[in-house]
C-alpha cells in the first residue's frame, strides 16, 4: 500500500490484495492502550519473519493524553517507521484532527464512530470507515459499562482488515494477559474476536502481506531500551547504578530486575553523580560497570566522567537523548547531546562515543562499548535517543551462546604493576583490581590528579604532557582499528547524506527514494562518533556535497553538531547541514527535499 508497493496484486480471494508493506497509525490517548495494539502488531510481524518498525509519542503531561503509535510492517526491508500512513485508526476527534494529514491520499481512516465525526472536506480525500468501537467493545465484554478493551477490539478489526494470523495473535494475547486473573484473558479474547468478527461497513477489500522472503534465525522483537539493557548483560556487565529519568529509566528498571538473576546488582542512587561514582567504583573493583541517564543527568555526570578519563577507568555511560536543553522536551526525539558526549567536562578528557543506529544495533553496540572500555581502559558513552529507545523492531535472535561474555576480574598475583606505564607496548593503561597481590609490595592508586606511572600525584609538566598524550593516543589507536563505514548506494555522486544514530533508516530510505527519482544520492552512517574512524575523507571525495542530517539545532554558524565535528576535522567546506528540532524523527521526504534544496 505504500508508495513503493508497486507489486500489489489481487489474490485468489476477490477481496484480498497482497501487499508488501503497510504503515498503520493508531491515534488516541495513551490511557487507551494504543501502545499495546502497536506492540501486538510488531510482535506478530516478528513472529512472521516480517520486518517491522514502530514509532510512538509519549504524552508530556502526567495524566496521559494524546499519543500515537505507528507501526510499519513489511515483507521487504523496513528502514523507518514511514512518513505517511496507509491506515489511520483514530479514537477521538482530536486524534482525527491532528493525524488525518499523516495519512496518504486515498488511505483508509478507520474511526470510532462513537467519538469521531469525520470532516466533510476529508471524505473525498480519504476512505472513511466508521465502526462504533467503544460501544461494540462494551457489548463484546458483556456490558460492564467500561470500554477498557477497545484497543484489543480495534486490534481485531485490524487483524481482519489485514488478514493477520489469528492463532498467532491469540497466542500473543494469551501470553500477555496470562498469569493474571483468568477473566482478563477471556475479556481480551472476547474483545479481539468481537473486532475480528465484525463486518466492517464500507471496507470492500482486505490485504495480506506477501510471504516474507527471509528465513534464517527466528526474530526477536523488542525496543531499543530493551536491546541496550540486554546487550549490557550479554557483554558481561554485572554492576551498575542509576537514577530515574525519562527515557533512560526503562533501562535501569530492566537491569535492576534482571541483573540479580546473573548474580549482579543495579543500584538506584540518590542522584546521577552518585550513580556514575558508584559505577566507576564498580569498575575499579574489577569489572566494567554501567550507568546512564538522559540530558540533565548526563550534565551532572561530567565531573566524574572526567575522573574516569583521567584515571583511565573503564565505564559505560548510556545517554538516551531527548529534547534539550535543560528539562527541554522530555518525551521527544532529539540528537543534541553529541557535543556534551564528546566535549562535556573540563580539561582535555578523551572518551569514546558510539551511537547505535537501530534496535538491533543497540544490542551489539552495548557489547562493543564494554569491549572498548576494557580494551582501551576508557569511559565509553553510548548515545541512544528517545526514538530508538521506544521504537520496536524485529531482528534475528543473536547467537547468545557465542556472544555472551565473561569479563570477570582476574586476581592472579603480579610481580609488579604500574597502571600508567608510559612504555606499555600497546600504549594502554591496565588496572589491576583490588584483591590482586603485588609481589613488589608497591600498590597503585587510581587518581584524578595528574600522576606518575604508579598513580601518585605529580606537578611535573613533562609527565602531564606525556600522560595527556597517552590518554589521547590510545583513542587514535582505537580509531585505526575501527571499521570504515560503507557508503549506502553508489560511491560517487552529487550528494552524500551523512547521518548518525537513529537516523540511519530514514536516511537510507531517502537514498532509495532519491535514486528512484534519478538523483545521485548516497548515504553514509557514522556510528563511531569519537574517535571518528579513519578514512572518511576518501568517502567524501566521491561527492560534490556532503550533507549531514541531524536532529539538533543549526548552531551559531549554521552547522549541526556532527557536521561541526566533521568540518573541524576535515576542513572540508563541502560539509553542510540539514537540521531540525521539531521533536520527531526524520521524515524520509524531508531529508531528501531539504538536502537537494541545499545543494541546488
Amino acid at each position, binding site marked *: 500500500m505504500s508508495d513503493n508497493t508497486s507489486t500489489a496484486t489481487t489474490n485468489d480471494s476477490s477481496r484480498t490484495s497482497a501487499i508488501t508493506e503497510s504503515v498503520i497509525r493508531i491515534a488516541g490517548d495513551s490511557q487507551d492502550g494504543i501502545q499495546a495494539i502497536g506492540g501486538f502488531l510488531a510482535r506478530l510481524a516478528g513472529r512472521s519473519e516480517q520486518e517491522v518498525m514502530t514509532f510512538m509519542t509519549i504524552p508530556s503531561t502526567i495524566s496521559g493524553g494524546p499519543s500515537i503509535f505507528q507501526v510499519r510492517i513489511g515483507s521487504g526491508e523496513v528502514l523507518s517507521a514511514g512518513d505517511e500512513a496507509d491506515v489511520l485508526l483514530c479514537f477521538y476527534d482530536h486524534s482525527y484532527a491532528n493525524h488525518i494529514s499523516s495519512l496518504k491520499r486515498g488511505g483508509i481512516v478507520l474511526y470510532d464512530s462513537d467519538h469521531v465525526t469525520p470532516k466533510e472536506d476529508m471524505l473525498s480525500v480519504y476512505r472513511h470507515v466508521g465502526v462504533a468501537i467503544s460501544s461494540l467493545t462494551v457489548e463484546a465484554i458483556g456490558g460492564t459499562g467500561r470500554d477498557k478493551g477497545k484497543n484489543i477490539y480495534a486490534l481485531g478489526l485490524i487483524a481482519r482488515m489485514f488478514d493477520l494470523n489469528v492463532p498467532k495473535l491469540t497466542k500473543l494475547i494469551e*501470553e500477555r494477559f496470562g498469569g493474571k486473573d483468568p477473566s482478563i484473558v477471556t475479556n481480551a479474547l472476547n474483545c479481539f474476536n468481537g473486532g475480528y468478527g465484525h463486518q466492517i461497513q464500507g471496507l470492500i477489500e482486505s490485504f495480506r502481506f506477501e510471504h516474507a522472503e527471509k528465513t534464517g534465525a527466528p526474530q*526477536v*522483537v*523488542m525496543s531499543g531500551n*530493551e536491546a541496550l539493557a540486554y546487550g549490557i548483560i*550479554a557483554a558481561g556487565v*554485572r554492576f551498575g547504578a542509576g537514577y530515574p529519568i525519562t527515557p533512560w529509566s526503562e533501562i535501569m528498571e530492566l537491569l535492576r530486575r534482571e541483573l*540479580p*538473576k546473573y*548474580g549482579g*546488582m543495579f*543500584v538506584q542512587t540518590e*542522584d546521577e553523580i*552518585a550513580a556514575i*561514582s*558508584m559505577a*566507576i*567504583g*564498580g569498575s*575499579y*573493583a*574489577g*569489572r566494567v*560497570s554501567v550507568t546512564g541517564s538522559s540530558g540533565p543527568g548526563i550534565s551532572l555526570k561530567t565531573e*566524574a566522567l572526567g575522573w574516569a578519563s583521567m*584515571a583511565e577507568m573503564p565505564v559505560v555511560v548510556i545517554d538516551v537523548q531527548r529534547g534539550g536543553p535543560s528539562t527541554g522536551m522530555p518525551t521527544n526525539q532529539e540528537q543534541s547531546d553529541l557535543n556534551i558526549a564528546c566535549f562535556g567536562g573540563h580539561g582535555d578528557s578523551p572518551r569514546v562515543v558510539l551511537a547505535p543506529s537501530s534496535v538491533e544495533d543497540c544490542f551489539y553496540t552495548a*557489547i*562493543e562499548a564494554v*569491549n*572498548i572500555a*576494557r*580494551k582501551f581502559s576508557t569511559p565509553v558513552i553510548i548515545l541512544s535517543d528517545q526514538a530508538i529507545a521506544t521504537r520496536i523492531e524485529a531482528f534475528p*535472535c*543473536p547467537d*547468545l551462546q557465542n*556472544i*555472551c561474555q565473561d*569479563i570477570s576480574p*582476574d586476581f*592472579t*598475583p603480579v*610481580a*609488579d*604493576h*604500574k597502571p600508567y*606505564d608510559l*612504555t*606499555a*607496548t600497546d600504549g594502554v593503561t*591496565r588496572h589491576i*583490581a*583490588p*584483591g590482586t*597481590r603485588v609481589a613488589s*609490595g608497591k*600498590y597503585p*592508586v587510581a587518581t*584524578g590528579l595528574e600522576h606518575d606511572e604508579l598513580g*601518585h600525584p605529580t606537578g611535573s609538566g613533562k609527565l602531564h604532557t606525556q600522560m595527556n598524550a597517552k590518554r589521547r593516543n590510545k583513542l587514535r589507536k582505537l580509531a585505526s582499528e*575501527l571499521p570504515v563505514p560503507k557508503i549506502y548506494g553508489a560511491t560517487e555522486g552529487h550528494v552524500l547524506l551523512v547521518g548518525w544514530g537513529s537516523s540511519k533508516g530514514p536516511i537510507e530510505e531517502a537514498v532509495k527514494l532519491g535514486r528512484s527519482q534519478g538523483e545521485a544520492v548516497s548515504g553514509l552512517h557514522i556510528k563511531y562518533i569519537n574517535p571518528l574512524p579513519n578514512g572518511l575523507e576518501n568517502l567524501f571525495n566521491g561527492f560534490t556535497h556532503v550533507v549531514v542530517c541531524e536532529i539538533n539545532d543549526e548552531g551559531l554558524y549554521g552547522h549541526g553538531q556532527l557536521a561541526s565535528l566533521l568540518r573541524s576535522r576535515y576542513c572540508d567546506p563541502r560539509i553542510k547541514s540539514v537540521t531540525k528540532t521539531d521533536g520527531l524523527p526524520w521524515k524520509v521526504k524531508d531529508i531528501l527535499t531539504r538536502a537537494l534544496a541545499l545543494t541546488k
Partner: protein
Amino acid sequence: MSTIAIPNETLPRTGIAATLPAPAPLADADRKPLTKKETAADHPTWCPGCGDFSVLALYYKLIEKRKMLHENICTVAGIGCSSRFPYFVQAHGAHFIHGRALAFASGVSLSRPDLHVFVFGGDGDAFSIGGNHFTHTARKNIKLTYVVMDNFVYGLTKKQTSPTSPIGFKSKTDVGGSTDRPVNPMKQAISAGATFVGRATATNLPHLLKLMEAAMDHDGFSFIECLSECIEFFPGAFDAAVPRKGGTFTEIPSEHDVTDEYAAYKLCDAPWPGVFGTFYKVDRATKNANEAKLITDSRAKLAGVPDWQILQRNFDRMK
C-alpha cells in the same frame, strides 16, 4: 545485520617487563602481619604537626594488628588535605573527586564483599559537597568504614569556613567570623540511619584505635568523626579535648545504651568539646546483605543455568 567490531579480548595484566616472578598466592595463614614499613607509601605532604598524621599512623597499626593483607584493603578518599590519605598507604587505593568518595566506595563495597573498604576524608568533603551521599550511604547501610578527619576548616584550599566551623570562626570567607550554624555530624549520621556512629580525636590514640577496630568489625556503615587539628589554619581548635593542653577528654559513660537512638542524639549536644566514643550502634540489614538476598532468591530456580541461557529464555519470550 550488526556485528561487533571490537571483540572481547584477554587483556595483558601489566605493561612492566616483570623482573620479579609473579608471586604464588599464599595461604593467608602463611603470611605475616604487615609492618608499618610495608604499609607506608609516599611520605605525607601534610604540614608538620597536622593531626592527620596520627590517623594515618593508626591505620598502619590497625592493618598490622588485625593482620589485614595489602591486597584485601581498599582505601578510598575524595579531595582535601585529609583525602590525600590513599597515597600514603601501600594498598589498593583510589583518590576520587571532591565529595563523592562514599558513592565510589559503595560501588566497591557492593560489588566486592571480600574487601575491607575504608574511606577517609575531610569535613568539607563529607558534610558540604558530599552531605547527601553521607545521608544516603547511611540510610542504605552500605558496609564500609568512613573516618572523617574533621578540622573545622577547609585545609587544602587554605582556610575557608567549613560546614563544621564554629560560629565566629574567622576565615577567608568569613573575615568577621562565620555566622552559619554548623552541621552536627553526629546528629546528621544518627538521624540519617547510620548504624555505627563514633567520635574520637587524633590526639587520643588508644581511644581512636579502639574505635577504628570497632568500626571495622561492624557489619554496616560505620562512621567516625575524628577531630584532627589543622595546625596551619585552625591551630588549637581542639585543645579543649586535649588533657595535656589543659582540656578534658570525656569518654561516653559506659552506662550509655548504644542502641538507644534518643540517648545517642542527646549526647550530640554535650557541651564543647563534647564526648567521645561510640554514640550509636545497632544491627540492621546492610544493603550488601539485602542485595545478596535478592540475588540468592533470583537464582534459586537458576542453579547451574549458564548466563547465556538465562538471557536466551528472556529472548525466547520476545519472539
